[in-house]
């Protein structure tokens, strides 16, 4: 057992492990960042998985046709936003139940991406390259971790920092949080609740689409139907796990990413830990965290946005 612990420690402390975890965590971080803003605005979009897989299919199609990763990423973003627009129209425009609409979005996205992607299965593209800086990337250990990632990874970090600044350091962010916590008061103060929520939903769609596009553009250089493989649900879990805070979101994303990756390595080491137990850990952890933060609600400050998932129809 000591030997096994040693083996795991050795694995975790290797540079390659950290590099792999960062790559595996990036789609989770991208998608969860978008959902965090959506939920902070008081909207629960359960359709992340559907928007992500559409982003993956359209992202690959775009990159394949144009031979450009940037065009592919943009196609993914647009696909995610288009899906989000449907969700926004129904839940905000027609005041339809958000839970059911989000699930419908996932079902639709899974099917539609299969139709779009069926013509591209088996094709390959040149994946996004790691950005290498002279000197800096050559530094021992930290060089490749800090200065040897692809553009998606840097963007995901910048995105979270941007979201944090927006939510806590700008007036618009304050208004968005107010809309999510009490839409009736925000409406009474004259803020356009539905418009703000629509913008948040579109932003969430763009992030989910980009997260999906990351998979065929940087993670594997090809498209497989259903390649998001439940990452959308993990991203959803992640937002709750992070109790709607951007800082905790980063920590949570890398933790979940590490667990997903460890499950493969642990299986290889033959330690008798069932890989299925590792796979279900993110979900179990989320249930536990949800119970803990719900229990302390009211005493430990803000947990869930108070208007999360509640339909709002302005009276004129």
């Amino acid at each position, binding site marked *: 057992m000591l030997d096994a612990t040693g083996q795991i420690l050795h694995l975790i402390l290797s540079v390659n492990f950290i590099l792999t975890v960062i790559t595996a965590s990036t789609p989770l971080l991208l998608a969860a960042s978008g959902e965090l803003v959506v939920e902070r605005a008081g909207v629960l979009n359960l359709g992340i998985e559907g928007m992500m897989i559409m982003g993956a299919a359209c992202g690959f199609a775009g990159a394949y046709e144009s031979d450009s990763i940037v065009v592919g990423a943009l196609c993914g973003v647009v696909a995610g936003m288009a899906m989000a627009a449907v969700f926004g129209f129904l839940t905000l*425009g027609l005041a*339809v139940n958000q839970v059911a609409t989000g699930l419908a979005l996932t079902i639709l996205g899974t099917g*539609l991406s299969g139709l779009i992607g069926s013509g591209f299965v088996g094709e390959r593209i040149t994946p996004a390259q790691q950005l290498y800086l002279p000197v800096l990337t050559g530094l021992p250990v930290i060089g490749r971790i800090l200065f040897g990632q692809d553009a998606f990874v840097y963007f995901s970090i910048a995105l979270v920092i941007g979201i944090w600044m927006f939510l806590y350091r700008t007036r618009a962010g304050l208004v968005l949080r107010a809309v999510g916590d009490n839409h009736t008061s925000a409406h009474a103060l004259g803020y356009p609740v539905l418009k703000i929520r629509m913008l948040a939903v579109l932003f969430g769609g763009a992030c989910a689409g980009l997260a999906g596009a990351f998979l065929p553009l940087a993670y594997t250089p090809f498209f497989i139907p259903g390649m998001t493989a439940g990452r959308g649900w993990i991203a959803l879990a992640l937002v709750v796990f992070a109790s709607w805070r951007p800082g905790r979101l980063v920590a949570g994303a890398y933790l979940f990413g590490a667990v997903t990756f460890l499950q493969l390595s642990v299986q290889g080491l033959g330690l008798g830990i069932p890989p299925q137990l590792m796979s279900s850990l993110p979900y179990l952890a989320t249930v536990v965290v949800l119970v803990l933060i719900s229990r302390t609600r009211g005493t430990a400050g803000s947990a869930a946005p108070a208007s999360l998932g509640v339909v709002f129809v302005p009276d004129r």
Partner: protein
Amino acid sequence: MQLVLEKRAERSTAIAIASPLIAVALTLVTVGILFAIMGKNPITALYVYFIEPLTDPFSLAEIAVKATPLVMIAVGLSLCYIANIWNIGAEGQFLVGAIAGSWLAVRTNGTDAGAWVLPVMLILGALGGALYAMIPALCKIRFGASEILTSLMLVYVAYYGMDYLVRGPWRDPHGLNFPTTAPFDPAATVPALIDGSRLHAGTLVALVVVMIAAVMLGRTIMGFEIKLIGAAPRAARFSGFNSDQLVLLTFAVSGGLAGLAGIIEVAGPIGYLQPDISPGYGFTAIIVAFLGRLNPVGILIAGLFLALTFIGGENAEIAMKVPQDLTKVFQGILLFYVLACDSMIVYRIRLVSTFRNPVHA
């Protein structure tokens, strides 16, 4: 100009009745357009999808087989949704029910245990599903944790748990290394209704469930409580109804029905436990519940219709080389239209000029 929702003075009964039909019609038109884009003749495609399966006995039996779990799960879910309680983890409760019932089948495999095995398996399945549903229910009433998120997360936990069992301890030692349990003994199998057909006795159970639910919702105090707490939670609290108890009850019933559907599916059409026993029945049942207007008889019709999309999709794949994914597109679009039409029961859409008219302002 701007679209604005306006609450109707009272619910529109005409739209309430027409809403599922309008939704289905709009879906058919949309999918027809999609077929045309894909270069297929829409009329032929819709015929293969929706009419052809109704013309041969084999497909008809398959529709009943697919509708059985959908209807059972959706009836349970509708009780939750009427009471404004959001159990969306029926897929997980379905899987746990299948696991709980299969435990006995695996234990008695190869022994000459008698006819008691199947009934006990069904009870275990229902209990397993109900107990698994107690986790989100208790988290909600005890800690105030959102049942939407907890019940959904537990789906994946159940899936991985089942995956572990069939690949590990319960794997058939004589099964050529496939991740399945040994085939269930005849005593642990739901009997076929007609010899040689896949139509099984579980379909009768689903029909009984629909009847009981219809009576319970329409004729009992409990049904009244469920409806009242959904429609007017404050009034229900003032009149002394215990909403915590209702959360436990609706979760237990919906989880139990999902679990029962799970073990019937495994002990009936499949015949052994394997990693993929459900093409997402627990999620499709949510569409069924809404399309059926949360009404037991409506759910029966909606369940048959959704089952038709599964079978039609399989037919279309073979006959017209249309990918199976189209069935999911179809189901997603259908749910969108159903939800949008339902919204029109309570609201009306008004086009409002964004410039205020000074005379009327």
